[in-house]
């Protein structure tokens, strides 16, 4: 056990102790939890930075600590006087602890344990605020999807253990029958997709929006991104089976597209943020599937911090709608920019697919900023150029510095298929962008599908038999 994981695990234990006593003085407990997590973040960076093996672990545990600390600190005042302040604080602190364990767990069993515990805690937290009566709609069914993911993960771990793999993540690579491994990897990827709220399994994330803001923020500290952490930890298993990776990339790309469409239909702040999470985590899964573990790690860190902060600020500045109509015009040529530059760069350079997609996204960002700044002064034009370029520098330089879990070279055929997936995705997003900017009217069927995607609700599969509610006769009820 490295010193890093000892420190982080100790923090988790301390948090659990704190959680046990949190219901009496919830505000104080949450504030102390935030302090503990801040200390753990500092310790993680000091202990882990620079070490070869624990490099990525150090950054991820620092991230989880900082974001969870911010969420707890936020909750300590935000939840003051709330109807469920006590039980909420208790479960929230415990959830932060479970997330920390997920990051630093050294064995598959501990990992699965923490994973399941965190799911159950989220179910419990959302249950406290489950809609009653007129205020909101039911979310119970959608949340249960999480449990399906848990079952998949536990099954994968059991299969691996049964097939003679070591319980330690370090000794995971000890091979066994390929079919068993593929089976386990498939189960693992399914649980990862559900945890990452990859569409069409994103319903549970929207159901959590009925719970307080602080939980939505904390979900981004190691809960939704636990899927990516699982991929890093089980990397040897996944890399041995490129097909599985490719499927992950395709599922990720699908989530990017569907998440983007959902975000274009939501008009509530939290709903937009959740749809954007589906989109961004899909992007990260796609990068993972294409073998770009460094990019995926950076995306995980950056997205978690950004989105958690956005949730915490979701009450700010109403009335300043960024989407008020100001006549955005669309050019049919703009549809061709992203896919076109992908094809051109692919022909001219030997960049990997993941890099290519990212470059195309930065080109889109440049054009976006440029279109906005065209009418403004030189400061605006400078900003519109400098911001994307600076961003690109960060996005391409940092993954080299971050110690990614594994450096990979995938077989040629995987790379080529991944390229097709990426091109399809870019084309889809460009068309969606065009349809939005040109205010194209969706066909009726597409509209209905898209709405049920943006407002996920389990569709009844059959007409259920209706059972009347038979109340007992009133006299008997009074005496029993």
């Amino acid at each position, binding site marked *: 056990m490295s010193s890093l994981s000892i420190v982080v695990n100790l923090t988790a234990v301390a948090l659990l102790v704190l959680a046990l006593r949190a219901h009496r003085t919830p505000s104080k407990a949450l504030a102390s939890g935030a302090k503990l997590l801040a200390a753990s973040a500092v310790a993680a960076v000091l202990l882990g930075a620079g070490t070869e093996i624990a490099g990525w672990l150090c950054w991820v545990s620092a991230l989880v600590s900082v974001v969870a600390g911010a969420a707890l*600190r*936020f909750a300590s005042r*935000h939840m003051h*006087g*709330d*109807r469920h302040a006590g039980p909420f604080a208790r479960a929230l602190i415990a959830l932060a602890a479970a997330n920390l364990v997920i990051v630093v767990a050294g064995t598959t069993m501990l990992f699965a344990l923490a994973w399941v515990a965190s799911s159950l805690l989220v179910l419990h937290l959302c249950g406290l605020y489950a*809609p009653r009566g*007129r*205020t909101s*709609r039911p979310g119970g069914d959608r949340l249960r999807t999480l449990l399906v993911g848990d079952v998949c993960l536990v099954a994968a771990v059991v299969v691996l253990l049964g097939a003679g793999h070591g319980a330690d993540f370090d000794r995971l690579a000890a091979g066994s029958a390929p079919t068993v491994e593929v089976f386990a990897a498939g189960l693992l990827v399914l649980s990862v997709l559900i945890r990452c709220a990859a569409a069409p399994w994103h319903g549970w994330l929207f*159901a959590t*929006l009925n719970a*307080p803001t602080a939980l939505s923020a904390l979900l981004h500290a190691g809960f939704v991104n636990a899927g990516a952490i699982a991929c890093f930890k089980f990397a040897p298993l996944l890399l041995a089976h490129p097909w599985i990776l490719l499927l992950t990339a395709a599922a990720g790309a699908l989530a*990017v597209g569907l998440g983007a*469409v959902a975000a*274009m*239909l939501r008009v509530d*702040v*939290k709903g937009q943020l959740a749809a954007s999470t589906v*989109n961004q985590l899909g*992007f990260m899964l796609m990068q993972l599937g294409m073998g770009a573990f460094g990019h995926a790690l950076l995306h995980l860190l950056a*997205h978690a911090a*950004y989105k*958690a*902060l956005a949730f*915490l600020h979701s009450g700010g500045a109403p*009335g300043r*709608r*960024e*989407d*008020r*109509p*100001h006549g955005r015009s669309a050019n049919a040529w703009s549809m061709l920019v992203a896919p076109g530059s992908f094809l051109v760069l692919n022909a001219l350079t030997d960049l990997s697919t993941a890099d290519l997609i990212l470059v195309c*996204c930065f080109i*889109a960002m440049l054009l*976006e*900023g440029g279109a*906005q700044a065209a009418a*403004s002064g030189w400061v*605006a034009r*400078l900003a519109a150029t400098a*911001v*994307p370029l*600076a961003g690109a520098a*960060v996005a391409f330089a940092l993954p080299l510095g971050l110690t990614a879990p594994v450096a990979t070279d995938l077989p040629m055929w995987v790379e080529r298929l991944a390229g097709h997936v990426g091109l399809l995705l870019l084309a889809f*997003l460009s068309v*969606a*962008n065009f349809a939005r900017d040109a205010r*194209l*009217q*969706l066909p009726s069927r597409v509209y209905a599908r898209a*709405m049920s995607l943006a407002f996920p609700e389990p569709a009844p*599969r059959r*007409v259920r038999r*209706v059972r*009347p509610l038979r109340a007992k006769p*009133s006299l008997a*009820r*009074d005496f*029993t």
Partner: protein
Amino acid sequence: MTDHAVPTLESIVARIAGRLPRFFPLDAFVASNPLRGFEDRAFDDALREAADWFGARTHPDLEMCRRLVASEELGAAALRDAIAARAPERSLGLAGRHRTLPDFLLARTLGKLDVDDASGLEAEGYLHSAAERLAQGPAAAGAGPSEGDAADRWQPRRERFVDWLDRHTRRDDALRLDALTIPVLQHAAFAGDRSLAAPAGARGLYAAFRHRLLDDEHFARVAARSGSTLGVLMPEAVETVVAGALGSLGCGADGAEPCLARHAGALVGWSSFLASRDGDGHAALLELLAMRLAAERLLYTEAAVGLGVQANASALVHALAGCEPVRGTSAVRRLAATARWLELPRWALGAADDREIAATLALFDAYDEAWLALRAVEAFENAFRKPLLDALSRHPGETTTTRARAQCVFCIDVRSEPLRAELEQDESLETYGFAGFFGVAVAIAREDGSSAPHCPAIVEPGWAVRSHTGGEGTRSQARRQVSGVAGRSKFDPLAGSAFVEGLGLFAFPAMLRDVFSARGTRRRADGLVEEGALGLEAPDTAAQAAIARGLFELTGLRFPLARLVVLCGHGSTTANNPFASALACGACGGQDGAANARLLARYLNRAEVRALLAQDGYEIPEDVVFVAALHDTTRDTVEILDRAHVPDSHAGDLASLERALAAAGTANRRRRMGSLGTHGDGRSAFRRSRDFSEVRPEWGLARNAALVVGRRWKTRGLDFGGRCFLHSYDYRADGDGKLLDQILSAPMIVAQWINAQYFFATANNEAFGSGSKVTQNVVGGAAVMQGECGDLCLGLPEQSVMRAHGEPYHVPMRLLVAIDAPKEFVAEVLARNAAARRLLDNAWISLAVVDPDARIPFLYQPGGGWQMDHAVTANPIPISSSGAVA
């Protein structure tokens, strides 16, 4: 039954729209009465009627009343007095034990007669006989409205059909109805630049809903199994679908209106949003109702298919008739609780007379929970009114004639009152209360072309000014541009991924900054450079003088004027608060009053305006300077605006005034922080104004209870605890009562709106407030909803009126208006003002006159007439020395 008596759909919808509250968007939140459509009814009746109409409780529940009785230290005797004023002192007897009716009602209010307490019920066989006899005998009629067969039938007047269905089956149709319709509503109403557009045929709300579900596999199956199709269940024309749905529900000509009204009342946020948006036309509201009826029809068709009956209301009711809905408190519990309270020997009840039992049970219905809660409200009102009127009437007279050091005009807002009281500890300072927009009905044009009215919601802005953030440096300009590029990218699917990967890490330092030292945002109008924006003419000199004259007339600003006359508007500073504008100035339409104060000060300092004022008899000496200021109610700081316009000769006066303001602010801050639960030197006020996780930055107008209209010396030295709107007024300068008429038509109405908003948001926060802030979700930048998919919320959040969940801070009380003027004079003015009389006669507010000569308070009686209010009080408001000296 004549044909012309059948109301048209349009007239029904128009009548429904008349009942709906007004909707105000979050960036211009104005507190208003959610029951404004019921103000034409007497208060008690209005609350009952509205409770049915909205399907929600309109009175504070008894648990809340009990907590308030404890926290407000209201004696049981005071509560009993309020009850006895409405309930005869007659005897109530059961099996030989006798108590009085008010005692019985008091016990129920205080929870000493608890029908929910089931202890000992099981073992007591004696109750069987009594209850059985009751159930069979003729006395059963008095056992409760929920008993009997008739209640088992669906009544459109009482509830929607989905609600009835939910009560009789294990279905969750009310929630599913929301889930089917609200997403469509959100997209159709708020879709903007960043959204995908709806199909070509889905222009209206109902059409969008129809397109959403026409291809739905599940409901197509349901329709097919019920022998119909989706096209038949959801025809294209709005009128057809409403007629079809009403027909299938079995609502005839007189059932249509209640049925539609229940649907509007159950989705009151969206209904009033659409009704307010459309003004006089109600097409959108009709579409909304059509959508809800169609969705409801789909749901009960599904239920009918599941039961194997015809898909209409009468068939479903017939099929489910055998199942009794969950009942209210039953006769046996009531009887047992009463027996317990009477300390009746257990065996004695069996011997009780059936008539006695029936009479006792009937009392539970005649004096229900709403009745008891309203008596508690009256008790709080009485307990507050008596000391207030007593202090006002026995206040010593005014003798001051010397020139004051400074005169400060504040907003009538209840948050000004304690600051004014602190300021007046210094006898050389005078304060006045005036509507916070100072009569300057202006709009502020924003850079993006929109504008915000800075005047009460009942006034149209007369002109607009443009505000500039003034002297923006290249650095802040660059920062704005960078965040502009970033902000635009983050919602674009292609650029968004690049944005997150490239710039997302910058959220780490931002997060640390927010956690450790957040900055509050205050929307401020800085340099007002340009008048006459938006094509509206700025007032000319004559109009400016007219506005200025209003200040002197209405406030009775005392001459000789002080060297400094401060016009102090107010605003607030909070972070990450969707209800920020609810803390700003209500008279400025939910904005701060800085711009209004600055404009009026500017006008009053002009020589041309002063020349015109002199013609009206308002001679303003040369050495008088008008200064604008802004009171930050979260931090209790007062900032002098346009300092550069103050001549050097007045620098000394200004400095000493600022010291006084700072001292008053510090004292008030300390006191306010105590009420928020943090003690110490009040520095936490600054933390609260900056902290992005703070849900109670200040108490706003909570605990408001009265509007005092009169000369300031009448209230000088009185401590109202920040519960009074104080409007300055001198009846001697108001010959024909025109000014009092103005006060009764504008400030009083605004105060009543605020008071009613706080009343109902406290009484039932879930229905008339906006629930807890922690689960709120801002929709379309205009409103909040609870959670993922709820109705738009209209009122204040729970945290604005409660210390903690279930612990009210605000006391639900109706507004008391106390006027310092002769009784006959006020009566004359009232005779002319029908709107004010309507509120008074329906007991939405109460009016007291403190006759300056008689020095005896008189209470206005609904219907006309005055009653002397006996100023007997247990704990009079002490009058501090500064008042006595005056």
